[in-house]
């Protein structure tokens, strides 16, 4: 800065000030308020959904999702990087960071969510072992035919007890496989198997969350809790608690064109909205940080007389200055 504070404030009247007292009073005030609100209002803690509850409460959705994993038609199966190379990922012209970093968290949805759990369960289950052998031994074309007819039949499926029933048809080994997978899930086995296969300690929930995200059950619960994207999504919290309200600007872009438009403008549309909103917010955040150097943005405070309210004593005519008379 060059100048000392003494030079900077030369001619400005100084007043007594107690920094430590101010901080202690603020600490006490904020603490009392936080303690009262915490005691009176508690905090959000809605129990997480599990694959077990999903498979108990929406059996058809579970089996349809698992069949979709085998068909490669679910969100995760067709996602692209970083999970697999099936989908291209989002891009804007040559800007395609999703593709640039490749497959770094490999997830083969059919194998991870259906085949491998069934293989683990098949050691003590002869019919399942036979069904799996039939499935794995069939051609891709045959598997596709079975899946096609089975998926169509699932739209009219009924639930009897804990099982899913479809009209008789040529579904190959799929009914046996899906019945077994549903049983494993209902027993709670799939929740554990998907977290971190082969390891005792586990903190990575990538696979179970991807699987649940593919189904309609978790999205339905979110809809009932008013958490969905059309209601500003991630900003919200369960119950009547405040969520991440500071994400309002980020979330707002998802509510307006061109981010909601299929056709879009300049290649910006709903299919690459995530990437474009991230780019936009990065630019806006950089602009906020660089306000001191950006003409117009740095001049707005001079034009908008809010500072006259903040420093009203300073701007008051000298004859009416209470600071002087004090």
């Amino acid at each position, binding site marked *: 800065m060059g100048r000392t504070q003494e030079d900077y404030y030369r001619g400005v009247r100084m007043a007594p000030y107690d920094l430590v007292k101010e901080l202690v009073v603020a600490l006490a005030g*904020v603490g009392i308020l936080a303690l009262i609100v915490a005691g009176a209002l508690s905090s*959000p803690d809605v129990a997480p959904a599990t694959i077990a509850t999903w498979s108990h409460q929406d059996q058809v959705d579970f089996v349809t999702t698992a069949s979709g994993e085998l068909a490669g038609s679910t969100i995760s199966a067709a996602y692209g990087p970083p999970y697999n190379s099936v989908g291209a990922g989002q891009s804007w012209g040559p800007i395609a960071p999703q593709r640039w970093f490749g497959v770094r968290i490999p997830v083969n949805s059919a194998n991870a969510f259906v085949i491998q759990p069934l293989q683990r369960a098949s050691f003590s289950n002869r019919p399942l072992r036979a069904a799996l052998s039939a499935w794995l031994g069939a051609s891709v074309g045959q598997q596709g035919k079975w899946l096609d007819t089975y998926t169509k039949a699932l739209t009219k499926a009924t639930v009897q007890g804990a099982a899913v029933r479809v009209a008789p048809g040529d579904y190959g080994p799929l009914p046996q496989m899906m019945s077994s997978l549903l049983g494993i899930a209902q027993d709670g086995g799939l929740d554990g198997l998907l977290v971190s296969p082969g390891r005792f300690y586990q903190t990575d929930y990538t696979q179970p969350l991807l699987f649940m995200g593919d189904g309609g059950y978790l999205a339905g619960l979110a809809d009932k809790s008013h958490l969905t994207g059309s209601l500003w999504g991630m900003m919200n919290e369960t119950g009547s608690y405040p969520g*991440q309200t500071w994400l309002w600007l980020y979330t707002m872009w998802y509510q307006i064109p061109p981010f909601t438009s299929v056709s879009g403008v300049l290649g910006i549309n709903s299919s690459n909205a995530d990437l474009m909103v991230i780019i936009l917010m990065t630019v806006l955040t950089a602009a906020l940080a660089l306000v001191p150097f950006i003409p117009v943005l740095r001049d707005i405070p001079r034009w908008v007389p809010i500072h006259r309210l903040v420093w009203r004593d300073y701007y008051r005519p000298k004859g009416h200055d209470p600071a002087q008379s004090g």
Partner: protein
Amino acid sequence: MSTTNSSEDRVERRQGSWTLRIRAAMERNLPLDHLLPDRQPYYVGSWVYVFGVITIAALVWVIGSGVVLSFFGPQWWHDSGTGRFFNSLHFWSVQLFFIAMVLHLWGQYFMAGWRDGRAATWMIGVVIFGISVLTAFTGYLSQQDFASQFIAINAKDAMNSAGIGSFFNVLNFGQMYGLHVMLLPIGITFLVVAHLVLVRARGVVLPIDPEGGPRS
């Protein structure tokens, strides 16, 4: 003769010592009466200046309650009444922290607080705001409740689209929790200290467009 030699020695020693250079810079830029001032320009009496102090106070409560939560571990805040209370204290302290920080930010914007060599103070403040948003985000992901699941499943698409998801996996509780309780709070604390040191070293900015110059 000996006096001259001694003086030259001191000058030579001072020029060669990094420690002495840093000490001299600190004495020059941040003397104790600037660090803990007992006098301020009279216009600092405005209510807008309170938001910065409240932000710091709320941050202290956020960190304090967070330390207790991290000590006892994730199960504690779900299964125990005391744990649930500390989780609530953490939750509401965060809300107060953000309210005060946003008011402080807007206050400083309309006061053009970056003037007269204070751009770095403003920029560090914006970075603190950004890292705070990220820290809160990882906190919501670490709650281990239904909202965490929903936020993770939705947020992954944004992270993956920008390539960030390859390294910052919002579906990985261990990674999010580690960042939330360790690296990000350290980053915020370090930057807040830097922000405060700059505020105290440079002092609060003069009002905009003083008519007729500074008033006594």
